[in-house]
């Protein structure tokens, strides 16, 4: 084995500005601020136009999920988990269900595997679509969000058709999925994918070949590749830094090993590169959804029978199930003590790292006008930070 020296990266020096000196201005960005993603806030200390120090303050959305889950039956937690990350609920559902199935030793039918994959890819697309509007909006381009949120809405229509819910789908239930695809659903999927792709082409033209957008985004928020492990950066943020990590490939969960796709990797690791990479991933999502529609078995059971949910006990044990959401590694750690309620459920949201440690580091020295753009380019959702 290669012998390495124990290496400690010293924490970046924090400026300790003297607020009394009158040289600095203390500013709160958020929680009531259109330039913040969701309900969180940044405490900025500004000198002139540039940020000297940044602290992320979270907790405005803290509902105590992990405590509440310890109070509820295993199945009762199923409607609860999807609320943890509002724009991307399905990953919660999947990770929770997969963890339970692993602990309880349940194999789900093949059809459920495919429908879960479909659900996850669709929500990835929807989430990216909302993000891209936010990214453009953070730099002041109000048109993209008008389009992309509508595109997202079309994808949500599909969810509504499939699961009966627009935002909280509650479709991936432990044991499988909650229903078969309705008649004509796949046709709708393909139609909407065409619409979305056409609109993405427009967005690509308008947003990524835009001199102002380039001026704003290029060079903003550079993440060196060696930060990736040190900060626990995952997902597009890591891939844009040239680190080819995609849990869909690495873990090979659900039907991903049977789908044809390549991990998209970037180089320049700035806001523009990350945005571009996410755009490519959107195209990838569309491609994957088409593949799934093509390969999904047409019939067969979609759910494994479970014991009575009122008394379901899961054997003692613990596991960690992760999946690649739009922002990176989304994971559920579930520990059971053999009773009818979880002993501990811990949620690992990628924003936890990105919005706190990484954001605070990157924000230093950034122009105050770029804080919102930088924040969005890390693609964070506050609810998954504080749960």
């Amino acid at each position, binding site marked *: 084995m290669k012998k390495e020296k124990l290496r400690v990266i010293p924490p970046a020096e924090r400026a300790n500005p003297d607020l009394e000196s009158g040289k600095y201005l203390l500013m709160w960005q958020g929680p009531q601020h259109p330039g913040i993603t969701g*309900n969180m806030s940044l405490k900025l200390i500004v000198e002139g136009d540039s940020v000297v120090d940044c602290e992320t303050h979270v*907790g405005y959305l803290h*509902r105590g999920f992990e405590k509440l889950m310890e109070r509820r039956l295993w199945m009762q937690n199923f409607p609860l988990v999807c609320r943890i990350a509002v724009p991307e609920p399905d990953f919660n559902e999947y990770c929770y269900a997969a963890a339970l199935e692993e602990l309880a030793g349940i194999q789900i039918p093949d059809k459920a595997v495919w429908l879960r994959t479909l659900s996850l890819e669709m929500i990835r697309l929807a989430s990216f679509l909302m993000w891209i509007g936010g990214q453009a909006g953070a730099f002041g381009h109000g048109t993209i969000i008008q389009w992309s*949120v509508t595109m997202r809405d079309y994808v949500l229509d599909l969810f509504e058709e499939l699961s009966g819910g627009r935002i909280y789908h509650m479709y991936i239930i432990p044991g499988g999925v909650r229903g078969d695809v309705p008649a004509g659903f796949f046709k709708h999927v393909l139609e909407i994918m065409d619409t979305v792709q056409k609109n993405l082409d427009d967005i690509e033209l308008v947003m990524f070949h835009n001199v102002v957008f380039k001026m704003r985004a290029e060079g903003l928020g550079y993440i060196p590749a060696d930060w990736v492990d040190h900060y626990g950066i995952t997902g597009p943020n890591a891939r844009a830094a040239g680190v080819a990590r995609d849990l869909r490939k690495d873990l090979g969960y659900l039907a991903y090993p049977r789908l044809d796709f390549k991990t998209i990797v970037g180089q320049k690791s700035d806001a523009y590169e990350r945005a571009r990479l996410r755009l490519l991933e959107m195209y990838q999502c569309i491609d994957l959804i088409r593949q799934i529609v093509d390969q999904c078995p047409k019939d067969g059971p979609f759910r494994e029978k479970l014991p009575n949910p009122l008394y379901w006990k899961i054997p003692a044990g613990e596991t960690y199930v992760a999946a690649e959401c739009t922002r990176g590694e989304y994971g559920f750690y579930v520990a059971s003590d053999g009773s009818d309620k979880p002993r501990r459920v811990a949620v690992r949201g990628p924003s936890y790292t990105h919005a706190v440690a990484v954001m605070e580091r990157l924000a230093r020295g950034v122009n105050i006008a770029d804080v919102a753009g930088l924040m969005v380019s890390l693609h964070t959702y506050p609810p998954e930070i504080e749960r």
Partner: protein
Amino acid sequence: MSDKKLKPAPLANEGLSPDERGLFCDAAPREYEPAKGVIEDFYNWARAESLWILGFGTGCGAIELRPLMTSRFDMYRYGIQARPTPRQSCVFVIGGYASVKTLKRIVRSYEQMMGPKFVVALGSCTINGGMYWDSYNTIKRIDQYIPVDVYITGCMPRPEALLAGFQELKKIIKAGKGEGQNIYARDFAWYKANQKQIIKNWDMPDYNW
């Protein structure tokens, strides 16, 4: 409102540094007489047809405001638009559950809005706690802390439900029933007592505007 017993009058803005005191008003809120007759009707029509929402996503409800604001549902055509600052907004959309930490900001933002101001509460959580009924960090009834004009059920309510909620709000305003500001002023002590019971680190002035 018979249950709203008045507690001892709250504090003025004591304890603030002189510079800070200049930033806040130090008078208690008061009730405002509506204008007379047709004039008030005309004003109410204008208030109803120009609803400016405070851009503060307090909870998951914010997620359905996006489609509403954007092209598919396009609330602008109903005279509804989002404003980034509470000073210029007249509608506060409480997007579902409110944690204690957010409640503090809600109270502040609400008080900074200029009256007449209206509150639309989304989802179960604002009515009776919703799925966070047993959480240690979320309130159950928003009407204990600020007056609410319209409730919209759902979790989440669809954008259409929000639209319908705004139409309902318009009706209420046009009928001259959107007097949340005056109710708040009238029962100010009661609201403050409720707020202070929950918000433990009350480090803001009582008169927040």
